[in-house]
């Protein structure tokens, strides 16, 4: 394939789903079948194109020496194409903002994963929204068991979402990445709030829920806060490097120049500013609060947002700008901040997940926790491990979400059967025994859950988590960095809890006997929903085997960590050059083998599964039995179940003052009082001036006019006296005048003035 064909194909990858969005919105809004067929066409087209590009890259790798791919090391960016988009004010230098695509190994694996996950989710959505069943009638709330009335809208927004994620993945500069980022932010708002008319009437003892439209606003606002800071970081980035293009700005020479110009400390600030975007988008503490409430959206939305796309975008960003972060870690405390936030989030979310009763809630906190793993990995400089865990996590988390949606569907079907619409079908306390009712869902959920827990050797999650542990241990052991051991211990604890709560979830949902009639009457979901589960579960197992460490178990030459060499080639050269310049701590190389991380990850995984089984699985919960953790943990359980009260804290400390400020200070005092007051004052002044003018006019002009009138009247009154109506007086007057005239003329003629008179008459 020629370079140009590949470039065109790369540009077309996000174009398909974006175009489908417009087509559905404009043309097929009322036709459900056409909408999902178009949506499928869009994402399957994107899948075909993505896999073509990805496999082209894989081919380049595999044709080379797979332990040392020279071609990729020298030219990681295999496909690049960009166009000038917006001219910026610097006309002298003719700089333009660019739109461009570039494909390097990291992009290739992301394309592979994202397109596959999205296609699976789209296939699943057709079944999830009950296509083919009797049509639902109420728009804006879920119509259980009936076809979703807003079917087309769903697929339009999901296509936009997929298009935005693909746009973000193939982009070659921060600006286009940010554009995709923001489009996804909007889509998350619309899709979380998909059932906009849904309201909850909660009874005590129910799982607390906020209505979807509030959850949508919460998600958007929280990520928006992060995006503003991130934009600052991007602007600073542009200011420092003069370009937003990744390969140009993050090359060794460019970073060295920047380090000399603004200092490594400021580079750390820049890295942290951009990292804030990840904190928001990938739901790290303190901006994690939106993710559990985002469960209000339909399950395919949760799968997309929390597995395949949005949260992955956050981690993808910091993986992309890793050279900058690497320099920042070495030269400033940025690494402590990033890894600290990541590790803390991982542990905190894991503890909360232990006490959640909503099946999707457990998965939400699990996502936050796993993202914490990835962020912590970046914080200690483990580039490959973070990227690896991102990919494997996407697979098994998407699988878990889709499977949980299948479970919820089964429970809702049971609810329809027994006409019980008050029991929450998502509450795990009301499930049980679904293993026999929904076997495919059970086995795929089990595979996904074990992958999440990190069951050794056979699941993908094990390999990626193990690599993070290995990196953390290396940083502590080899470099003597305390951060390493802190991260190691916290993540180990989080992994233990992960395995524990996952086993708890599986036991409560599937094992034992059904605890309510809903669970009794549940049945397996249709083919649209189970097919993606099976496909994803295959990947949840297999995806890890490309990342077996080179020197696994101390061997040499038996295994090749293809993932490491492939993805590492993206930045191996720049990092090596930076290492020479002493700007980064260590290179992207194979870590020396150590048994400690392996044993740790095996122990925590198996230990967590075992403890979970002992508490929840061996004697599965019966109908009215309380959660066995409540008594031993005591008040701690309440603390965990209420999510460490972060929402309440934010409400009291942040939201209420702001609302008070806006409602009272700005609205009442400033807006109504001051601004309206000024306007009223102006109005009153002008009115008074008007009054004054009116009075003046009346006084002055009125009087003047009146005087004229009076004069005139008196004149006429006097003149009127001439008209008596008596003819004789008229005769008298005219006679007198005639006599006077005649006398005058005779008199004048006598005195010889006739000449002058005649002249005058001429």
């Amino acid at each position, binding site marked *: 394939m020629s370079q140009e064909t590949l470039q065109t194909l790369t540009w077309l990858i996000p174009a398909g789903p974006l175009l489908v969005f417009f087509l559905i919105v404009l043309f097929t809004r009322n036709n459900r079948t056409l909408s999902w067929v178009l949506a499928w066409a869009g994402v399957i087209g994107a899948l075909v194109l993505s896999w073509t590009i990805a496999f082209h890259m894989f081919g380049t790798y595999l044709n080379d020496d797979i332990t040392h791919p020279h071609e990729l090391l020298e030219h990681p960016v295999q496909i690049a194409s960009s166009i000038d988009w917006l001219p910026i004010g610097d006309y002298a230098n003719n700089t333009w903002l660019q739109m461009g695509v570039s494909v390097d190994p990291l992009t290739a694996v992301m394309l592979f994963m994202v397109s596959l996950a999205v296609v699976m989710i789209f296939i699943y959505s057709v079944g999830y929204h009950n296509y083919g069943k009797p049509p639902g009638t109420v728009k804006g709330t879920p119509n259980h068991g009936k076809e979703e009335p807003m079917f087309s809208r769903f697929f339009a927004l999901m296509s936009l979402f997929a298009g935005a994620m693909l746009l973000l993945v193939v982009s070659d500069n921060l600006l286009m990445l940010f554009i995709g980022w923001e489009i996804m932010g909007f889509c998350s708002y619309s899709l979380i709030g998909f059932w906009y008319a849904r309201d909850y009437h909660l009874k005590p003892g129910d799982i607390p829920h906020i209505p979807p439209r509030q959850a949508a606003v919460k998600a958007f606002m929280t990520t928006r806060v992060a995006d503003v800071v991130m934009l600052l970081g991007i602007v600073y980035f542009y200011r420092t490097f003069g370009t937003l293009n990744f390969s140009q700005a993050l090359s060794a020479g460019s970073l060295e120049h920047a380090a000399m110009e603004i200092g490594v400390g400021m580079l750390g600030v820049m890295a942290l500013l951009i990292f804030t975007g990840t904190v928001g988008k990938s739901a790290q503490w303190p901006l994690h609060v939106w993710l559990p409430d985002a469960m209000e959206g339909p399950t395919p939305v949760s799968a997309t947002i929390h597995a395949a796309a949005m949260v992955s975008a956050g981690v993808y960003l910091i993986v992309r700008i890793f050279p900058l972060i690497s320099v920042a870690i070495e030269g400033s405390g940025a690494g402590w901040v990033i890894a600290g936030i990541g590790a803390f989030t991982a542990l905190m979310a894991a503890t909360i997940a232990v006490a959640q009763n909503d099946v999707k809630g457990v998965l939400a906190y699990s996502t936050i926790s796993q993202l914490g793993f990835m962020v912590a990995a970046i914080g200690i400089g483990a580039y490959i491990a973070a990227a690896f865990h991102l990919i494997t996590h996407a697979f098994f988390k998407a699988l878990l979400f889709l499977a949980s949606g299948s479970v919820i569907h089964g429970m809702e079907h049971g609810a329809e059967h027994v006409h019980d619409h008050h029991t929450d079908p998502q509450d795990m306390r009301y499930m049980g025994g679904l293993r026999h009712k929904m076997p495919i869902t059970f086995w795929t959920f089990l595979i996904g859950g074990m992958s999440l827990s990190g069951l050794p050797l056979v699941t993908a999650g094990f390999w990626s988590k193990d690599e993070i542990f290995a990196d953390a241990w290396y940083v502590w052991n080899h470099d003597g960095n305390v951060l390493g051991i802190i991260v190691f211990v916290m993540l180990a604890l989080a992994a233990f809890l992960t395995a524990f709560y996952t086993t708890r979830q599986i036991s409560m949902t599937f094992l034992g006997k059904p605890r309510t009639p809903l669970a009794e009457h549940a049945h397996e979901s249709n083919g649209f929903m189970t097919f993606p589960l099976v496909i994803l579960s295959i990947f949840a197992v297999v995806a890890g085997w490309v990342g077996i460490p080179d020197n696994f178990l101390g061997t040499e030459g038996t295994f090749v960590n293809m993932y490491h060499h492939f993805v590492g080639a993206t930045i191996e050269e720049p990092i090596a050059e930076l290492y020479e310049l002493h700007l980064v701590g260590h290179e992207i190389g194979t870590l020396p083998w150590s048994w400690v991380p392996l044993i740790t990850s095996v122990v925590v995984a198996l230990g967590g599964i075992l403890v979970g089984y002992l508490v929840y699985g061996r004697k599965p919960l019966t109908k009215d039995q309380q959660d066995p953790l409540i008594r031993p943990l005591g008040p701690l359980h309440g603390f965990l179940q209420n999510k460490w009260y972060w929402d309440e804290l934010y409400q009291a400390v942040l939201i209420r003052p702001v609302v008070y400020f806006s409602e009272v200070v700005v609205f009442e005092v400033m807006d109504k009082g001051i601004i309206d007051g000024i306007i009223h004052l102006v109005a009153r002044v002008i009115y008074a001036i008007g009054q004054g003018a009116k009075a003046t006019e009346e006084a002055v002009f009125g009087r003047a006019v009146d005087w004229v009138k009076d004069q005139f009247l008196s004149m006429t009154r006097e003149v*009127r006296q001439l*008209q*008596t*109506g*008596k*003819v*004789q007086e008229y*005769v*008298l007057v005219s*006679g007198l005048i005639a006599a006077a005239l005649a006398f005058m003329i005779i008199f004048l003629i006598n005195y010889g003035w006739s000449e002058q008179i005649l002249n005058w008459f001429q």
Partner: protein
Amino acid sequence: MIPLSWYLLVAALLFSIGLYGVMVRRNAVAILMSVELMLNAVNINLIAFWRYGSVLSPAADTPTTGWAWAIFVLTVAAAEAAVGLALIISVYRRRDSVIAEELDLLKN
């Protein structure tokens, strides 16, 4: 012959008396009579000038203008008197009065 100026004087005197009468008399009929006086004074003037025009020029060729004009004036005076009396009768019928002072509808 007696001088022309005597005739003119008489005419002027008559005219003045007539004018005086128009201005002073209360009764409308009397005013009309005074107007007749004025007109006849004018007639005297006209005839006098006609007669004495022939003295100044040869007697055989005096134009007829003088006495023809006087006949016109006489006729017109008569017609006017008739009309005036008719008006006075009509006014009397409406207002029961012929005193000129009281006919002041055009006042103001």
